[in-house]
């Protein structure tokens, strides 16, 4: 008779016997030739057993929720204390248009805001700049000055709602505007809460909305850490992002490793400024992609928490538990959405969102089915939000914390990804850190190679995309959101009005103080706040800083 826990040798023998006598012959008889690798090309075994967890230790490798190594989640109660924040990234047209969308989303159960700025704002130029032609309000909401920010948050109480702002190169300036709007609402900076993305390294690596050279960019980011730690204590001053790295073509492992190495780089630079690790580390947050490969993604989130806890404790000597927590936002994979048969995207998003929840995310954006065509329509974004609500309230997956904990497959994948990511992190350490690696083009090249590999795998039919290289079918066009030219006209006329109605002397003085602060290497945050309060435009502020810091040009390669 077999015992309930067979000794390893019995298990090994039984496993081999099963494979040889049952699995292999049956598999050979099947005509189905299935690719047993993940979307990232990671080979999986046909079956996982306790044998795959040799040396695995419950306390060292898993533990309890809210306890190191935090594999099961950073909070002891996880979704029993509070569900993840349902935070749909949103912005289009004028600040008025987007303000209406925010109020709609909040009235339908969304629990936090997430601002998508239009490209001119992301690039630190005003709407009347020649490069802004055709771009105004297209990929997000147009924000040129504090006036726009006041309209964007009109009627939204900033002491009650948390806001995430996807802004990088000009992050400090938009944050200054948010702080100024809060003050106008009578809300102290000590009370407001939210996140600025503020992660420039992944811009050089993947998303490419950089402005200043790396050194100056890192200086500005450390300024926000320092200022936030003292003045805006509930604000997440950075969202260290794997999302864009993954979307640019990285594998799950590359996303994990590059993102955590970026995190290490920020901590290094902040420590060099003389900041105390426990003063800023609790406000570092992360942002990952939830891609198609269900178990690999769940393992990736779990591995990320484990590595970060080790890094903060062992590498940086953090003393506070909060400094060791990897808290993260997740967005489902935009790149996985297909233009063909677009309603299928709802299903993709559901699976990806479920992976994020099973991986213990703190907040979640679910993509809308129409995003391969345009920014989401109201109907599409509502379905995306409802998807989260169905997972939260109907699926039952929140009832038990880390429900996949102990799964042979998931634990094995978690350990594998953690070990391989640590090796990749050491490789970048050896290059002299992430800024150096970026200057060598290393992560950029790795990602481009992976993107090309994946495209080839799809075209060879090794990876199936339903509706694209299998089960193709004609479909009717779907209704999509259109941002018409009136948004641009309205934005340009408000910008002209702001420029003509403000106190010009006050603007000149604020910008000249800002420039001096930048030249002298002071923390620029207070000077940015004075400048935006005087209604200096984003473009004017960024131009002032460009005079001091210069601009980055990336080498053109493919």
């Amino acid at each position, binding site marked *: 008779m077999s015992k309930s826990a067979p000794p390893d040798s019995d298990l090994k023998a039984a496993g081999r016997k099963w494979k040889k006598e049952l699995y292999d012959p049956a598999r050979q008889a099947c005509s189905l030739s299935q690719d047993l690798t993940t979307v990232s090309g990671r080979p999986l075994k046909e079956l996982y057993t306790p044998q795959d967890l040799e040396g695995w230790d419950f306390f060292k490798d898993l533990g309890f929720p809210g306890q190191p190594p935090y594999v099961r989640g950073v909070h002891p109660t996880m979704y029993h204390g509070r569900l993840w924040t349902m935070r749909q990234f949103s912005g289009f047209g004028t600040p008025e248009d987007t303000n209406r969308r925010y109020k709609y989303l909040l009235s339908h159960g969304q629990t936090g805001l997430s601002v998508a700025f239009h*490209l*001119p704002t*992301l*690039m630190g130029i005003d709407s009347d700049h*020649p*490069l*802004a*032609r*055709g*771009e105004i309000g*297209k*990929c997000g909401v147009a924000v040129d000055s504090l006036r726009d920010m006041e309209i964007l948050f009109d009627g939204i109480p900033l002491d009650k709602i948390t806001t995430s702002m996807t802004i990088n190169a000009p992050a400090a300036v938009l944050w200054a505007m948010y702080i100024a709007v809060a003050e106008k609402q009578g809300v102290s900076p000590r009370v407001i809460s939210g996140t600025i993305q503020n992660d420039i390294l992944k*811009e050089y690596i993947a*998303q*490419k*909305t950089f402005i200043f050279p790396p050194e100056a960019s890192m200086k500005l980011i450390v300024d926000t850490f320092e200022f936030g730690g003292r003045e805006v204590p509930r604000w997440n001053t950075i969202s260290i992002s794997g999302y864009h790295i993954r*979307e*640019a*073509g990285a594998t799950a492992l590359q996303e994990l490793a590059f993102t955590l190495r970026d995190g290490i780089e920020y901590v290094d630079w902040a420590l060099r400024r003389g900041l105390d690790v426990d003063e800023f580390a609790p406000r570092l947050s992360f942002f990952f992609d939830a891609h198609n490969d269900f178990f690999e993604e769940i393992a990736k989130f779990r591995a990320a928490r484990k590595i970060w806890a080790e890094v903060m404790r062992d590498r940086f000597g953090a003393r506070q538990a909060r400094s060791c927590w990897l808290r993260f936002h997740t967005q489902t994979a935009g*790149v996985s*959405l*297909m*233009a*063909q048969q677009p309603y299928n995207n709802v299903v993709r998003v559901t699976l990806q969102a479920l992976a994020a929840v099973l991986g213990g995310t703190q907040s979640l954006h679910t993509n809308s089915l129409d995003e*391969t*065509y*345009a*920014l989401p329509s109201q109907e599409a974004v509502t379905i995306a939000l409802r998807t989260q609500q169905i997972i939260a309230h109907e699926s039952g997956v929140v009832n038990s914390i880390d429900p996949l904990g102990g799964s042979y497959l998931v634990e094995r994948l978690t350990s594998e990804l953690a070990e391989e990511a640590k090796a990749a992190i050491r490789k970048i350490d050896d290059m002299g850190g992430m800024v150096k690696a970026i200057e060598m083009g290393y992560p950029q090249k790795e990602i*481009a190679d992976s*993107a*090309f590999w994946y*495209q080839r795998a*799809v*075209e060879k039919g090794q990876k199936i*995309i339903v*509706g*694209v*290289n299998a089960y193709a079918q004609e479909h009717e*066009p779907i209704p*999509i959101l*259109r*941002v018409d030219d009136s948004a641009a006209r309205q934005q340009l006329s408000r910008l002209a009005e702001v420029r003509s109605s403000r106190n010009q002397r006050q603007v000149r003085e604020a910008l000249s103080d800002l420039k001096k602060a930048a030249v002298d290497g002071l923390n620029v945050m207070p000077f940015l706040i004075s400048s935006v309060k005087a209604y200096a435009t984003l473009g004017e502020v960024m131009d002032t800083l460009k005079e001091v810091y210069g601009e980055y040009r*990336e080498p*053109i*390669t*493919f």
Partner: protein
Amino acid sequence: MTQKNIRVLIAKPGLDGHDRGAKVICRALRDAGMEVIYTGLRRTPEEIASAAVQEDVDLVGLSILSGAHDVLFPRILELLREQEAGDIPVIAGGIIPERDIPHLKKLGVKEIFLPGSSTQDIIRWIEEHIPPARDPGKK
């Protein structure tokens, strides 16, 4: 007669930095034996048109996500015509709503490839529509 390789300019107009698609296309066309010139990010219509003329390319491929295609594509076509290079075919790919396609084609964009397009389809299209060598005698 020695055949000249097809010369292609892959250009990224618009302010967005999403260059995954453009880079994959560049590699695929190069692997298919074409000469590929990539502009890099955030090129103005003026820069793209003059690069097309200076590099004497047989084809221009535009990659865009930002939504500014309705302003930038017509401008690029107009500038090519102004520089007597209106005969260089222009194709495009990226995030472009289906209902914009007829209008862009009417303006002169020869073909538009949406997400999910195979690089092989794009290569096939180019090989079918672009003569392998521009006659050296032609001005």
